[in-house]
Each structure stands twice: as structure tokens, then as C-alpha cells.
């Protein structure tokens, strides 16, 4: 087909057909369609045509629409779209200022291809920024997701623009600060310095002092950041004369040494025998002019502490020998097992664990601080509810104690930012701002003594727990953490402890800070919470024993040397824990990045079958890749790929593949998977299994054996709870809370998988085994791990209900070949949402309500026709499927619902972290009794029982207690209907669709006799029959139920009457009939007389 002809056809199809409407309603789909049609052939033409198209229909802001497309269009069209977008910006840039357009950009730029869009986005933003009021906030918050370098560049452009007024606003600076704290890359140091310099030229007030807080920078080892530090600490705004000098000086250094630590080295060369600790007043005179300058310009403490650090780096060997404490400090971040065990032994001997629930005295606190990293939650510092006392108490206590004992605690940078924002916020009371300022000063002074250290927290985190638990505790499983939280009531403490236990972070110890009574007075103190056993239990039980046996075999000398050997390696790597943390997380990022880039194309599944002599079966001996052998005992499972046997080896099951599944591909994949060792609740591949001792004939793999009497797949356990028989017989103790806890566990597992580059792929209800006895603290395992997607090896199986509809779109087919591409984390997130929905809604799928059959179900999924009542596409709740789902949905936590709506109605993705947060909130609500804990609720959700919005009554049919919305209740009373509980109501409505059979006729007679002619008639369905059977009064057949008009004998008004009744009157009487009004009047008259 020729291009022109094709275009004409499209034109006919779309343009002439009220194009504007189509555009407004369905613009994305439309443009994607057009693009798909025409881009096939000619790119140039495509661009022209899309531009023309958009202009001709007067799309208000073409570029915005196109941005909206970026997310929806297949990858290969992005190039063209960006070209159009660029052109559009050049032409229509000033149109792009509409507020809603901002939202479009927000929404659609997240998560799309970075490289492609960076250029365009920068342009667009610069355009937009000259119109938008909130440019910095917008820019920073958005760019932060996308591209930091780009953000900085743009920021610079704005900063250079002297006409710009808003840059002076304080909150911009707070945001900038936050931004720079997030990323402390080397190059940014220079950029920022330059930026400050520029800003300072025209802003001319001391915001800059706040802009970059020196305290922050100490944490960051990256030398170039010091550049900024010097600007700040010199208070160059107050010392304007010196400013140029400093800049000159720093520039010199920069040129000479590239970075500042080297500069410090130069000082050391200048001063023979220089010892950093000795840098005090008496040694000051010995310093060179340059060094003097530094000391003059900066605070002494700062440089001393900084040099201390340098000294640790340089002289680590000598120091290691001389100072045991420092060795230990060094090794805290070391993964040396021996050291850890030593530390754990020490930990378990701490006096804090001797008495449970006791408050800590100073000695104990000291112990704790020396042995763990203690985080202080923001609320300990920031609590304003009870005024200043608590705050002062905390700081007074810690101020002296910490400094005196040379101990340190950790505080989140987020907390510091909050304090800072409080200080700057004009709207808050003066007193509060003063307090914040005071607090900041105290923190600063503590920080100078290294008694408070700041931890970077991720920008979007809700609170510090999440940060610590997910960011640090999980990244550094070998490190021990204490987490201090100020408590206000018992419930919060429990939640706090539970949350830590639930998060499976056994290295976090919950500590609370609150009032205790001492000699009749209330004082504040720390207390170690319950649930602290996991803190060292698992180590003591498992690894300690293991290691102890190892130790026994070694001599004590060996132990000594191993520490010594380890330490020199460490010396250059880390000074304190935090810098190691940073490094590790950077490495982690780098790794995950390289991984993503690496695994774009899947390993193609080859059909190279491995031929073997005999498939092993019961009683046969097989050989494991770890050198051991095992005997197959019983068959415990059978699937499409092979048979699973129990073995004589403890806790080991072996899967033996059948001929069609035993491929080279499988073997390679399993070998790769074998490399991952810490796999938590995944029944991971323990070792490969061979037919022979030489490990040549691959036959299967070994995995953890789980007890099949206790563990059942979700599909046969939790998801069946809607069944009363099963519920009453097996799962009586299960509550809604148990279900939510199962969900949390699954989220945690998915998060864990994603952290380890595992894509679950075929996440479905048969692959998760749950312990049916553990309803309070569910335990579950993911089985079938050989089918997971690991690195480049795709997961080739699928279950349609769990397939992300985006896959159909991306693969352009309804029947994608899962071995030809790799699934993404997002695909898993969709499956996760379906899984959670299925669990909470008792096996109700999210799509397919009344009127949706097998045939159009896929369509419903693709169009996000979420069937339950929601604000997006089903506000009336019509067509939601019958059954328990409706009531469960009604009773569900609104935040959980909104996440489901986001996934199923709006096609968004929700990450496990968010799910866990919201689900934990749900658990809290359930515990408080605000939401129904019933598996199958039979009442409507009444959040405020005192308001009287819901009327409570006993069901007239089954007698259970239930409720109804007051309007509906009154309506039912008014029309003399039956007051029914939802279950009975559902039964009643189902009568309408009950097939007509003789048996049903017996139960609910459909027949009735006409009062006039005596003819037997039938109601069309059992619902009508039932409803009519409850009505008293005369019934007529269809013919005699018709209305006949007559004139009132008295007033002549025309009225209607049922034919049956009318015909009963004699022809004469029919002429004297009265209308209702006259009849009532007459009757009243008769009575009176």
C-alpha cells in the first residue's frame, strides 16, 4: 500500500470523525495508533505528519501530549517522538506553561528512558522555568529522579540569570541543600562551589551560610566537597574582603593538587614531625602561612578532626598497633567473621540483655553505644507536643555524657533538614523556630565533638525506620544497629517493635526513649524493647556454633594472624562505617546498573537435550555437585517438568527432570543460580544433581525440603478461606490480620528478590507455600525456583492472570513467547499486586465482573477495567461481582484500596516498600478494631458509629447482626422491603438468575391464579416469584393486570384501574365509579354522619 494512500486512509479514519473529541478522550491511544501505522514506513514523514496532525486539530499543547506518549509508545518510536517534541518546543515553547501540563510531565517522565529524554527535558524545563513560579521545587524534585548532572546544569543556568528573583527564596535553598546531600559526586563539588560563588555576587545575604552546612560535609570524605566547606566555614559573607583571597587560594590548590587531601599532605610536608592531635595553639606558630590561613579561616576543631581522619588514613599501620580501639573501629565495617563472632559474644554478654524491659543506666548505654550503631529517630529530637523539656532533657543528658565518654549517636540528615525547615518557616510560631535554631546549634556543637553523626537518608522516605531498616540494616547484615524511638504510648511501642521484627532485620535492636521514675521523680531514659532476641540469637545459634568448631581446629595464633592480615587491607578502604556504607551502596548501584545493561537480551533457550542412560527413581543413588550423594526416597510431587523426591539427606528434596526438560540451558541456568547463596525464603537451588560421580550426566537439582503436611500452596490454603467448610475445619484461627501479614511477607520476599537481581516472573498462587499453622506470624516459601528469571535466563512459564498487560503491548501480541525477552521488575510488581489482591479478596481476580466472560477477559485486563467500586472507572460499583468480594472491598483499608486502584485502574506500578508501609498501616487499623478483622465481613464499614450514618438491625432472613446505610434503611422500611444482611441480599438477588427447573419451582412456586379469570400464570423468574409471594393483595393475569381508563362519576376526572377489578363491576356500576379522591371524601363523609 502506498504511503499517500495509507495517510489518506488514516485521515479519513480519524480526522473527519470529530477528531478533537477523539484527541481529548483518547489521545494517547490515538497517536500511538497513528505512529504505529506510519512510522513503519517513513520517519521523516511521520514526524511531519504528527506535527501537522496535532496542529490541525488544535491540540492545545502538542508537546505535552507527546510527552504523555513517551511512556505509552513502544521503545522504538521514542526517537521520533523526541524529535517532534524538540521541534514543538522551539515553536510553541511558551504554551507549555499550563499547570496541568506540569502534572503530565511529572507523571510520564518518570521511569522512561533516561538517555533519550534528558536533552529534551532540559530544554523543556528551561522553557517552562521562565514561566513557572515554583521552578526550583519543580526542577529539583523532578530531576532528582532522572538525571542529576542535568539538574545541576540547568540549575547553573538559572543561577547565572540575574533577573531571576525566586532564587532568593529560602525554601529553594533548603531544597538545593537536600539535592546536594543526595548526590555527593566529585564533580558536583566544583559545580556547587561555582554556583555559590555566582549566587553570592548578587544575592548578597547570608542564606549561603545555611545553604551548605559544614556539619554535613564532614561526613563526606570526598575531598572536593571540602571546597564548599571552606566557603562556608570561613563565613565569607561576613569577611567579604577575604572572600576573593580564599577563592584564589582554593583555585590554586585545585590546580596544583587536584584535590584537597593532597593539599593537606603538603602542609604535612611543610611541617616536619607534624602530629595532627598536636595542632593546637602552641603548635600554631610552627605552621606555614598557608596552614595558618586555613586555620584562621576555618574553625580549629574542624581542621583538627579532619586531619585526624587523614592521619588515620596515612598512619594506619602504626596506629593499629598502638591503639586497640581503633583496630576495632576499623573492623566494625569489616566482614571478618572472627571479629564478628568476638563482637557478638561481647554483645550477648552486655548487661542490657540480662534484665528485660529495664531502663538503661549510663554504663549500659555506654556499652550499647560502643557496640552498636545507634540511630536516633527524628521524633526524639523534634517532638514539640510536650514543649521543650523533653528536648532539653535528651540533649543535656547526651551532650555531656556523649562528649565526656567519647561516644557517638547517629541522626538522619532528613531530621536535620526538618529542623532546618522549621527554623526557616515563617508560618510557624516564633518560639518553635527559636527552638529549632537552638536545636540546630546544639547538634552542630555535638557534631564538632563527633558525638552526633549524620546519616544520609533517602529523600522520599517517610520516616527513619524505613530508612534504616531497608537502607542500612539490609545492606549491612553483619552490622548491629540500635534504633531509638521516642515513645508516646504503649501501642506505638508495640508497633515499633513489631515492625522491626516483621521486617526480618535481625540486626536491628529496638530501643525507646521515654520517662522513667527515679527516686520519686520522672526522668528520661533509654530502654531496650522486647523482641531483642533475634538481635543475636540467630548468630549465636547458627554461625557461632559453626565458627566455634572451626575455631577449635585452629590454633589461637591463627586467629591472631587472621586479624592482622585483614587489617592492612582495610586501612585504605575505610575510616569509619559511614564511608564504607557509601562505598558499598555505590558499588551496589554500579553493579545493578551494569547488570541491567548486560541483561537486555535473554539467553535463548536451546533445545539441546542431555541424554542420559537412566532417569533415576526411588531408591536410586544420585550425586550432588557439592561432592555428596543422596538416595531418592519418596515421590512428593510431580509436575510438567519432572518429579520431586524426598531423600535420605536431611532437609533436602531433589527434583529430577524428565527427558523433555533436561536441557543444557537448564543446567547452565541452575549453575548460575547456584552462585547466589543467601536466599531467605526461596527454596533455592542447593546443588546440581548428577547420575554419576563425575558429575557429567545432569539430571536435576537439590533444594530445601519443606514439610508438606504443614506447608500448602496458597491456592489450596489461604485463598480458599472464603469456603466456609474449609475455614471452619482447618483455618478457624486465621483472621484478616493473618492475611495481611501473609501479604507483607510476600512483599518482603519480592523486594528481597529484586535486590538480588531475581525476577520472579511466574509469581502465582501455586508457587508460594504457606505454613497453615502459623496464622499469627505467617511463614512462607517460594518454590519452583528453577523457573525464576535470573540474570539473563528468562522465566519461560506464566499464568495469564498474573501477566502484566504491558507485556502484551510491548510484544505486540496476545500470546507472547516468554523465552524471547526478559521480564522487568515492573512486570513482577503487577503480578505482586494481583497476588495481594487475590489473597485479601479471597481468590477474587481483579478483572472480570458480571457480564465479563472468558472471551473478553483479556480485553478487560488490557483496558484496566477494574471491576470493584472505585473512583476511576466504576464509581457506582455497578457490575462488581457478587460474593464476598464486594463486602471485603467495602471493609478494606482505604489506603490499600487506593494502591489497588492505582495498579488495576490506572496501570501504575507500586513498589514493595510502599505496599509494606500501607499494609502495616492496615494491620494497625485491624488491631485497633477500626476495621473488621473478619475473613468474610458481613457488615458495611462504619468508621464513625456515633454519627448514626448506619442503622444496625438483625437480618430478617438469617438473624445475624448487620447494618445498612441510613438512607437505604429508610427506603427499605418505606417500601416494606425485607431488611437483609449482605449475604442474604446476595442470595435474594441470585434468585433472578436461577434457572427454571421443576425442582426450583417446588421450592419457590412461580405460579399464581388470576383473581378475575382463574387462569394460572407464571412469574418469569424466582426473584419476582419470591417478592410477589410476600405481597398480599389481589393478583391478576397479564391480560387482566392491564389498566383501563374510566371517568369519575362525581367530578369527571379520568383515572385508571386494573382490568380485572374493572370487569368485576356490572356495566351499570362501571358508569358510576368514583375516582380515589371522591371515594375517600365519600367514605369520610359516611363515617362522620
Amino acid at each position: 500500500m502506498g504511503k499517500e494512500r495509507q495517510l489518506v486512509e488514516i485521515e479519513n479514519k480519524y480526522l473527519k470523525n470529530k477528531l478533537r473529541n477523539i484527541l481529548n478522550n483518547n489521545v494517547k491511544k490515538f497517536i500511538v495508533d497513528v505512529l504505529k501505522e506510519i512510522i513503519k514506513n517513513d520517519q521523516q514523514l511521520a514526524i511531519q505528519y504528527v506535527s501537522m496532525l496535532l496542529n490541525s486539530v488544535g491540540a492545545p499543547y502538542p508537546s505535552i501530549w507527546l510527552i504523555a506518549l513517551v511512556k505509552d509508545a513502544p521503545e522504538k518510536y521514542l526517537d521520533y517522538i523526541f524529535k517532534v517534541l524538540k521541534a514543538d518546543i522551539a515553536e510553541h515553547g511558551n504554551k507549555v506553561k499550563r499547570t496541568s501540563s506540569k502534572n503530565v510531565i511529572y507523571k510520564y517522565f518518570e521511569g522512561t528512558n533516561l538517555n533519550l529524554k534528558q536533552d529534551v527535558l532540559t530544554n523543556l524545563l528551561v522553557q517552562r522555568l521562565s514561566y513557572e513560579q515554583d521552578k526550583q521545587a519543580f526542577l529539583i524534585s523532578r530531576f532528582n529522579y532522572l538525571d542529576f548532572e542535568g539538574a545541576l546544569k540547568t540549575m547553573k543556568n538559572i543561577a547565572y540569570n540575574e533577573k531571576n528573583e525566586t532564587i532568593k527564596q529560602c525554601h529553594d535553598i533548603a531544597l538545593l541543600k537536600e539535592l546536594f546531600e543526595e548526590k555527593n559526586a566529585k564533580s558536583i563539588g566544583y559545580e556547587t562551589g561555582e554556583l555559590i560563588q555566582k549566587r553570592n555576587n548578587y544575592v548578597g545575604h547570608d542564606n549561603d551560610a545555611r545553604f551548605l552546612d559544614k556539619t554535613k560535609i564532614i561526613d563526606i570524605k570526598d575531598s572536593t566537597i571540602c571546597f564548599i566547606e571552606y566557603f562556608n566555614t570561613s563565613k565569607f559573607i561576613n569577611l567579604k574582603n577575604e572572600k576573593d583571597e580564599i577563592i584564589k587560594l582554593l583555585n590554586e590548590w585545585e590546580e596544583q593538587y587536584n584535590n584537597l587531601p593532597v593539599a593537606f599532605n603538603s602542609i604535612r610536608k611543610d611541617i616536619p614531625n607534624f602530629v595532627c592531635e598536636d595542632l593546637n595553639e602552641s603548635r600554631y606558630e610552627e605552621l606555614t602561612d598557608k596552614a595558618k590561613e586555613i586555620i584562621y579561616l576555618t574553625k580549629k576543631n574542624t581542621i583538627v578532626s579532619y586531619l585526624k581522619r587523614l592521619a588515620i588514613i596515612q598512619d594506619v599501620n602504626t596506629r593499629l598497633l598502638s591503639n586497640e580501639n581503633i583496630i576495632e573501629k576499623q573492623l566494625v565495617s569489616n566482614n571478618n567473621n572472627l571479629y564478628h563472632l568476638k563482637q557478638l559474644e561481647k554483645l550477648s554478654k552486655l548487661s542490657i540483655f540480662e534484665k528485660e524491659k529495664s531502663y538503661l543506666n549510663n554504663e549500659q548505654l555506654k556499652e550499647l553505644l560502643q557496640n552498636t550503631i545507634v540511630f536516633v529517630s527524628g521524633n526524639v529530637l523534634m517532638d514539640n507536643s510536650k514543649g521543650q523539656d523533653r528536648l532539653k532533657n535528651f540533649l543535656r543528658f547526651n551532650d555531656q555524657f556523649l562528649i565526656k565518654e567519647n561516644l557517638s549517636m547517629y541522626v538522619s540528615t532528613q531530621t536535620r533538614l526538618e529542623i532546618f525547615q522549621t527554623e526557616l518557616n515563617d508560618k510557624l510560631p516564633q518560639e518553635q523556630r527559636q527552638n529549632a535554631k537552638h536545636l540546630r546549634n546544639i547538634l552542630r556543637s555535638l557534631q564538632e565533638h563527633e558525638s552526633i553523626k549524620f546519616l544520609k537518608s533517602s529523600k522520599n522516605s517517610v520516616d527513619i525506620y524505613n530508612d534504616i531498616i531497608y537502607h542500612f540494616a539490609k545492606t549491612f547484615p553483619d552490622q548491629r544497629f540500635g534504633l531509638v524511638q521516642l515513645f508516646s504510648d504503649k501501642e506505638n511501642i508495640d508497633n515499633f517493635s513489631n515492625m522491626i521484627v516483621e521486617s526480618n532485620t535481625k540486626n536491628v535492636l529496638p530501643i525507646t526513649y521515654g520517662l522513667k521514675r527515679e527516686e520519686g521523680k520522672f526522668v528520661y531514659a533509654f530502654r531496650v524493647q522486647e523482641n531483642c532476641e533475634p538481635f543475636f540469637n540467630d548468630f549465636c545459634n547458627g554461625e557461632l556454633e559453626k565458627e566455634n568448631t572451626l575455631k577449635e581446629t585452629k590454633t589461637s595464633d591463627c586467629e591472631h594472624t587472621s586479624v592482622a592480615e585483614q587489617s592492612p587491607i582495610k586501612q585504605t578502604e575505610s575510616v569509619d562505617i559511614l564511608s564504607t556504607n557509601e562505598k558499598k551502596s555505590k558499588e551496589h548501584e554500579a553493579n545493578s546498573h551494569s547488570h541491567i545493561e548486560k541483561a537486555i537480551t535473554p539467553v535463548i533457550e536451546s533445545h539441546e537435550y542431555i541424554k542420559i542412560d537412566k532417569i533415576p527413581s526411588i531408591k536410586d543413588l544420585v550425586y550432588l555437585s557439592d561432592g555428596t550423594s543422596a538416595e531418592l526416597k519418596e515421590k512428593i510431587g510431580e509436575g510438567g517438568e519432572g518429579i520431586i523426591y524426598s531423600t535420605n539427606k536431611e532437609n533436602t528434596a531433589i527434583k529430577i527432570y524428565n527427558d523433555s526438560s533436561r536441557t543444557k540451558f537448564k543446567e547452565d541456568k541452575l549453575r548460575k543460580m547456584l552462585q547466589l547463596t543467601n536466599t531467605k525464603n526461596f527454596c533455592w537451588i542447593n546443588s546440581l544433581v548428577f547420575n554419576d560421580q563425575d558429575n557429567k550426566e545432569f539430571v536435576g537439582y537439590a533444594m530445601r525440603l519443606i514439610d508438606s503436611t504443614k506447608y500448602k500452596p496458597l491456592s489450596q490454603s489461604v485463598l480458599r478461606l472464603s469456603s466456609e467448610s474449609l475455614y471452619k475445619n482447618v483455618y478457624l484461627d486465621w483472621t484478616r490480620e493473618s492475611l495481611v501479614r501473609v501479604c507483607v511477607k510476600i512483599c518482603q520476599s519480592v523486594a528481597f528478590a529484586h535486590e538480588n537481581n531475581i525476577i520472579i516472573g511466574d509469581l502465582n498462587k501455586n508457587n508460594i507455600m504457606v505454613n497453615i499453622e502459623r496464622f499469627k506470624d505467617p511463614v512462607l516459601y517460594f518454590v519452583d525456583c528453577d523457573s525464576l528469571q535470573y540474570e539473563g535466563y528468562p522465566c519461560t512459564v506464566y499464568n495469564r492472570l498474573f501477566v502484566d498487560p504491558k507485556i502484551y503491548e510491548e510484544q505486540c501480541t496476545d500470546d507472547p513467547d516468554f523465552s524471547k525477552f526478559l521480564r522487568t521488575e515492573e512486570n513482577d510488581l503487577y503480578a505482586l499486586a494481583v497476588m495481594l489482591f487475590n489473597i485479601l479478596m479471597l481468590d477474587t481476580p481483579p478483572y472480570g465482573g458480571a457480564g465479563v466472560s472468558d472471551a473478553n477477559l483479556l480485553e478487560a485486563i488490557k483496558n484496566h477495567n477494574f471491576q470493584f467500586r472505585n473512583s476511576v472507572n466504576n464509581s457506582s460499583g455497578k457490575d462488581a461481582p457478587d460474593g464476598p468480594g464486594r463486602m471485603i472491598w467495602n471493609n478494606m483499608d482505604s489506603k490499600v484500596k487506593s494502591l489497588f486502584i492505582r495498579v488495576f485502574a490506572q496501570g501504575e506500578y507500586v513498589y514493595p516498600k510502599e505496599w509494606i508501609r500501607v499494609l502495616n498501616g492496615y494491620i494497625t487499623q485491624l488491631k485497633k478494631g477500626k476495621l473488621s478483622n473478619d475473613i468474610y465481613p458481613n457488615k458495611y464499614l462504619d468508621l464513625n458509629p456515633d454519627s448514626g450514618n448506619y442503622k444496625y438491625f438483625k437480618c430478617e432472613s438469617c438473624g445475624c447482626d448487620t447494618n445498612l446505610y441510613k438512607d437505604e434503611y429508610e427506603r427499605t422500611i418505606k417500601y416494606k422491603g425485607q431488611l437483609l444482611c449482605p449475604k442474604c441480599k446476595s442470595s435474594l438477588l441470585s434468585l433472578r438468575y436461577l434457572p427454571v427447573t421443576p425442582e426450583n419451582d417446588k421450592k419457590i412456586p412461580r405460579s399464581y391464579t388470576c383473581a378475575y379469570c382463574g387462569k394460572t400464570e407464571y412469574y418469569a423468574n424466582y426473584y419476582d416469584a419470591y417478592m410477589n409471594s410476600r405481597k398480599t393483595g389481589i393478583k391478576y393475569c397479564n391480560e387482566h393486570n392491564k389498566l383501563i381508563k374510566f371517568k369519575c362519576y362525581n367530578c369527571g376526572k379520568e383515572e385508571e384501574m386494573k382490568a380485572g377489578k374493572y370487569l368485576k363491576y356490572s356495566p351499570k356500576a362501571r358508569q358510576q365509579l368514583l375516582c380515589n379522591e371522591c371515594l375517600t371524601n365519600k367514605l369520610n363523609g359516611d363515617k362522620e354522619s
Partner: protein
Amino acid sequence: MSGNINLQDLTAGDIAKGNATQLMVCLLLDTSYSMLVNGGIDELNKGVETFINQSKESFIARDALDLCIITFGNEKAQVFQEFKNIEYVNFTPLKASGQTYFIDGLKLALDRIDGRRRQWTNTGISFFHPLLIIMSDGKENEISRDNDAIIEKLQSYYKKHLLNCKCIGIGNDVAINELQKFCQPNEKIEKMNSIDIYNYFADLSKSVTEKSAQSIYDEQ
């Protein structure tokens, strides 16, 4: 129909219990005189009873299995048991006599399956493809009647995946060719002696239990 009737009792067995995906099974059983040969009818009774009892015992199948029994013999085809959740099915042994009214039975079966399908679709309950199990010796005394129309209807159902069918020929001289017309194109007619019928039903209850633990998509 007066006073307050418990609506949940009234509809018991006729609305989906809980949320289980419903598995409709329609047994179309031959109860004609020929089933008396070699004790066929006794085996059939034993088999069906075991099937019902085993399914009732299984927690998984109990909620999902929706059973209808239609017999043809005894001078007419009749609905022995309307579609009901298995828990509400009471089975009394069948008696064999008279002629074979296979086509009438088939019509009844399709009618009941369609009715139930409509009911589930309208109330938004998910269900697996209905399973029709035909047990007959295939000797039809009215086979020449309007069977073309019914065959066409059946085949169109198979094509649209509205129905799955299993056909079991009983006895030594089964009219396989006749029966084949009523089956799914690729389906092989199982031939069994009357003695095997019992085992067949025992196996069936197992596979029904397995099936009800699946989701509707697994069957694609």
C-alpha cells in the same frame, strides 16, 4: 411461601460457595436395559456414589464442584439431579430398564449447562469450562431423528471452548462411530468394561479436586 424464609437456605447449593471457581460437571448416564448386562448398572451406581462421596470429603472440590446428573433410559430422558453444589447432592441408586433416549438426554444436558452458565455469568462468578461426561453403549433407538441439529450445536460449543466432553463407551460392542459424532474432534472415546466404571469415577474425583485448585487460566 409465607413468613420469613431463610434466603441462604433457599439458595443453598445454587449459589457459589465462597469464591471458588465453579466446575460444572454434567453426567449423562445410560440407564437403558442394556446396562443390566454384566452388572453394568451396579458398577455405575457404585462409581457415581464414590465420586460424590470422595468429592464431598475433599475440602477443595466441595466448594467448586457443581454436579448435574441426567439419565436416559426407563422410557424417557430425565434430570435425575439438577445442577447443585456437590454437598447438596443426594444420590439414590439408578435403575436400568427400557430403551435408550440418548438425544433427548443430550438436549436436556445442554439446556441445563446453558442455564447454569447464564446464571454464573450474570452473577459474576467465575467458572471452568463445563465438563460433560457421556456414558453409553451408543446404541440409539432414535438416532436417526433430528440428531444433525444437536451434533452441529455440540460441535459449535466445542469450537468456542464452551464445553469439554468425555465420552465412555460401555460394553463390548460399542457403536464407536455413532458416539464419535458427539465428541470433541480430538477426543478419543474410552472403551471400558462395566468393571472399569468404578475406577473411572474414583479417578475422576481426584482430577476434579486437582482442577478446582487451579485458576481458570491454567486450563488454557
